[in-house]
């Protein structure tokens, strides 16, 4: 009994719009959570509730199933109920500028502290110069300078007095001070000196020697005098500065009395202001050029030194933060230290510390795309280190790898309390679990997102609510129930299964947007079924340039595929080509040739390394089937070769193994195969046809070719019977089948398939173990027996040789 073609209702499982009680999606409420992700949502809630170490979450699933939407939804609700974390500021460390201090303040007070310090600096700038420019200060300074001048003069005067008494002058030279005998204010010339009595000359020499020592002692005492003077001026400046600044800083202490860290900082600021009061006095006349240059070159001018760098400001936050970092580089995760150019040199200070996502998410939640984290140098290691040590450490990357010896900042580390949610594909989760020993310790909770859900009346209604939710969020036109039914069907087609619905929200959302656009262009208020259908067709049309080219070349005879007539050892196989998100079926001619040999089936694709391992496995299986079924009791002397004609790329998968077997059986039996049929399905060693993937695309691929050449009513595709539930064929295929112009045959065994293809009974073994005469199997057995006999004859020694041996 030949296999009957499938009835049209089995070719595409329609959604019945009459089951929907709504007229359009405008009547439906939004979905509260992403469709079909109850398990993932439960895992997320579990992970969020557990505060223990390492209970970070990995949300896994393919792109577009709504991972980020669900994570944001769940985290957002939870975070709103939690307390707002504190602000963090970085302050100058007056004891060690290289190690800025991190100070925690209640939420919102970081900015206030920064403004207070700015105001303080402005007030100091006004108050300190006013005191230092006052008459009192000037008078005190003049008194000190006069005292120094008098001491200097007194010291020099003593030398000059003594020299003058002995007729010797102290004269300034370009290098220093000289001692020489004078008469009437003029230095003696050498002649005058030599005319003096020798005793007089000796006395002058002796006096000059004595005076020289005295002069040296006096000059040596000068730096000491100046040092004492400077100390006195400094002491006075400290006193005056404290008078000017002390009460201003005291005022500022009051609002921060509850924050010891701030009070300690204000103490340090006061000490620094008093010690460096000249920073507030500008480049006055009293300041020498060297001091001005030092000030210009100073890396931290006064205005910066007393500033407050607010790295985390939670002033306007409500609840705990939920941060999604789209570009998780090293710097954007743990923060960075900026530099600015100062007289051609790159310099930095505490005010150039910039926060990262970990700072902003501290006390809350950080959501990251794991693929992006892994793509960024250092980011993955930074993230793990922060989670392991529970603190944020800002270090330049060059220091992390030990490349740089230049001095930079080492900001104090900030304690970290954050829950990280990674979004990524399953492959990445399993790779990390396999190869990174720390991964499972740090990410103990996995939230696995479903890619499809079971299809039934309830889930179709949920799908309708998904259409309503997405439509509202993207401000689309409402969808009527016919349109919703078409979307449901497309959801099943995306799942590749008539009994499932895809949860790939992104793909559905794109379809809705495009359908809504088309409805708008047609002037419709609501989206109708035709709009969804047009959107689906439009997508295919935009993506199918390659398919059309292949089809065209097949029609033109460049690619040899027959859709009519018969041929021995030749069958139409079907494969799927995936180009981005678009997949289509492509017929391929598979041929088999047989000859006498050693029981091998040669897979030409494998021989030239164009066939993958699964394809090779399929070929070996069919060799096993052939041997077991037809050559159980005699040598298997067949040598066969199989090839995908005109295939220049790789071939992978075993979905063509049944087609290859049919080609072999045809070649062995000599029975021609109907070229109006195409075949897909894998075969096992028992001759059973097994399910394959992409059944819809494969059928449509052959249908398109047949339709292009004109449907004859004789054409069709043999598919595994176990694939019938996956059928969600295009409406034109279904319509052709309904009209009897195209057929889809569900096949369970090789025998069913070969009967359809050859029009000859396969035949079953009788009680005598033989296949009925004229059947396909009998012909195959006979051919193999003939080959075995001939092989035996070849293997038998020649007559002469035999006689010799017998003798």
């Amino acid at each position, binding site marked *: 009994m030949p296999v009957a073609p499938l009835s049209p209702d089995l070719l595409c499982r329609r959604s019945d719009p009459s089951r929907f009680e709504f007229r359009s999606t405008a009547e439906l409420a939004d979905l509260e959570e992403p469709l079909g992700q109850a398990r993932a949502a439960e895992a997320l809630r579990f992970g969020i509730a557990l505060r223990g170490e390492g209970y970070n979450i990995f949300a896994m699933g393919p792109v577009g199933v709504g991972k980020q939407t669900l994570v944001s939804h769940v985290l957002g609700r939870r975070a709103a109920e939690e307390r707002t974390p504190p602000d963090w500021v970085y302050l100058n460390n007056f004891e060690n500028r290289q190690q800025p201090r991190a100070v925690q303040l209640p939420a919102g007070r970081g900015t206030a502290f920064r403004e207070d310090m700015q105001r303080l600096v402005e007030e100091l700038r006004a108050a300190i110069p006013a005191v230092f420019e006052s008459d009192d200060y000037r008078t005190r300074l003049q008194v000190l300078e006069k005292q120094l001048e008098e001491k*200097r*003069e007194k010291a*020099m005067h003593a030398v*000059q007095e003594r020299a003058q008494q002995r007729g010797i*002058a*102290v*004269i*300034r*030279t*370009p*290098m*220093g*001070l*000289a*001692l*020489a*005998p004078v008469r009437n204010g*003029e*230095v*003696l*010339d*050498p002649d005058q*000196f030599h005319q003096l009595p020798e005793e007089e*000359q000796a006395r*002058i*020499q002796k006096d*000059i*020697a004595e005076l*020289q020592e005295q*002069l*040296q002692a006096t*000059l*040596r005492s000068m730096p000491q005098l100046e040092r004492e003077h400077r100390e006195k001026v400094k002491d006075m400046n400290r006193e005056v500065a404290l008078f000017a600044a002390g009460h201003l800083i005291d005022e500022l202490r009051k609002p921060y009395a509850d924050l010891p860290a701030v009070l300690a900082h204000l103490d340090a600021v006061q000490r620094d202001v008093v010690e460096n009061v000249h920073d507030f006095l500008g480049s006055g006349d009293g300041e020498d050029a060297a001091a001005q240059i030092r000030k210009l070159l100073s890396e931290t001018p006064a205005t910066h030194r007393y500033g407050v760098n607010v790295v985390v400001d939670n002033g306007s936050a409500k609840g705990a933060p939920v941060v999604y970092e789209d570009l998780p580089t090293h710097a954007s995760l743990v923060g960075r230290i900026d530099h600015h150019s100062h007289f051609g040199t790159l310099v930095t200070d505490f005010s150039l510390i910039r926060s990262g996502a970990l700072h902003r998410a501290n006390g809350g939640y950080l959501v990251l795309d794991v693929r992006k984290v892994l793509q960024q140098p250092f980011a993955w290691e930074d993230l793990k280190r922060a989670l392991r040590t529970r603190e944020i450490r800002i270090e330049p990357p060059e220091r992390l790898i030990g490349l740089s010896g230049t001095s930079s900042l080492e900001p104090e580390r900030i304690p970290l309390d954050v829950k990280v949610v990674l979004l990524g594909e399953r492959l990445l989760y399993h790779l990390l679990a396999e190869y990174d020993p720390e991964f499972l310790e740090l990410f103990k909770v996995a939230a696995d997102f479903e890619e499809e859900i079971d299809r039934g009346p309830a889930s179709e209604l949920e799908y309708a609510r998904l259409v309503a939710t997405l439509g509202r969020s993207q401000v689309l036109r409402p969808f009527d129930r016919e349109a919703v039914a078409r979307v449901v069907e497309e959801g099943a087609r995306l799942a590749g299964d008539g009994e499932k619905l895809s949860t790939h929200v992104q793909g559905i959302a794109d379809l809705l947007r495009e359908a809504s656009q088309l409805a708008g262009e047609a002037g419709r208020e609501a989206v109708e079924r035709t709009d969804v259908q047009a959107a689906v067709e439009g997508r295919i049309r935009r993506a199918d340039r390659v398919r059309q080219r292949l089809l065209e070349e097949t029609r033109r005879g460049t690619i040899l595929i027959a859709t009519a007539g018969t041929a021995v050892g030749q069958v139409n196989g079907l494969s799927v080509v995936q180009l981005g998100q678009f997949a289509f079926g492509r017929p391929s001619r598979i041929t088999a040739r047989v000859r006498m040999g050693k029981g091998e089936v040669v897979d030409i694709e494998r021989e030239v390394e164009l066939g993958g391992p699964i394809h090779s496995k399929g070929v070996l299986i069919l060799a096993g089937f052939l041997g077991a079924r037809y050559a159980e009791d005699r040598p298997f002397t067949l040598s066969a070769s199989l090839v995908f004609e005109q295939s220049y790329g790789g071939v992978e998968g075993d979905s063509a193994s049944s087609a290859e077997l049919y080609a072999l059986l045809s070649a062995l039996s000599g029975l021609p195969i109907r070229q109006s049929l195409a075949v897909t399905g894998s075969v096992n060693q028992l001759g059973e046809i097994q399910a394959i993937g992409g059944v819809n695309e494969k059928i449509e691929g052959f249908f398109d070719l047949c339709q292009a050449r004109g449907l004859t009513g004789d054409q069709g595709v043999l598919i595994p019977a176990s694939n019938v539930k996956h059928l969600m064929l295009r409406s034109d295929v279904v319509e052709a089948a309904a009209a009897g112009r195209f057929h889809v045959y569900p096949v369970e065994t090789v025998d069913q398939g070969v009967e359809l293809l050859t029009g000859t009974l396969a035949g079953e073994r009788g009680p005598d173990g033989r296949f009925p005469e004229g059947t396909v199997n009998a012909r195959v057995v006979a051919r193999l027996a003939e080959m075995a006999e001939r092989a035996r004859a070849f293997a038998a020694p020649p007559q002469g040789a035999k006689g010799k041996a017998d003798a």
Partner: protein
Amino acid sequence: MTTLEARALRRILVALDASRSSLEALRAAAALAARMGAELECLFIEDVNLVRLGQLPVARQVTLTGGAAGPLEPLNLEAELRAMAARAREAVAAAAAPFRLSWSFRVARGQVSGELLTAAVGADLLVVGRAGYAVPRGRGPGRVARAAAARAPVSVLVLIGDIQPGRPVLAVFDGSPGSERALSLAARLEGAGAGSLTVLLAAPTREAAGRLADQAAQLLGGAAAPAGRWIGGGRLSDVVRAVQEPDALLVVGADSPTLGGEAGLERLLDEVACPVLLAR
């Protein structure tokens, strides 16, 4: 009484020894020459006493930087003097360039005061710094500046502190011919862009001061009478008390009775904190 004729300043002589105060004098002189349209003459004097020091084996030198002592090497000394002269010449070129002044530079060797006084003959104004390479001798200008102020045949500007454009000009007027010259010079400075002129009226009574003010206004012949300030009885102490602003420029007649001769001049130079222009 006739109107004063403003005395022209065509040649301004500056004494240089590459010390900081002489360079300040140079800058002030350059600015003044630019305002007056005068030519700048610069004289670098190699002190003959320094030259002799190098030749005198008994002379000893103590360096200021290290305190090391030893004899002076004549060759080193000569080289140092040449280097100082070269530095002074560069400074002159730099000071004159912004004003595009006509300038000259020459080097003389001899007694500094003597050479300076000799060179001043023929100049219209001599500008000297507060103190050159001399050992500090207490407050006020040094020996050379004092000698120039007392004995130069021309007007002398002694720079005590810096001189800035726009600073007020204070002229002492007691009715004497010397104070008339001072008034004339001060008026010329004011006209050339210096600050506003105030006449310090040295008279025993307010009435006498009023008469002096009228006399000054008449002498200047301007439409607007200059500001006048009575400073008391015409003694030097009154002038010193009246000139307390360090940023003023004091103009006084060298032979004005108020100044009281050379002793008075010495005292004035010791006690005022601003530049003094002695008019001759």
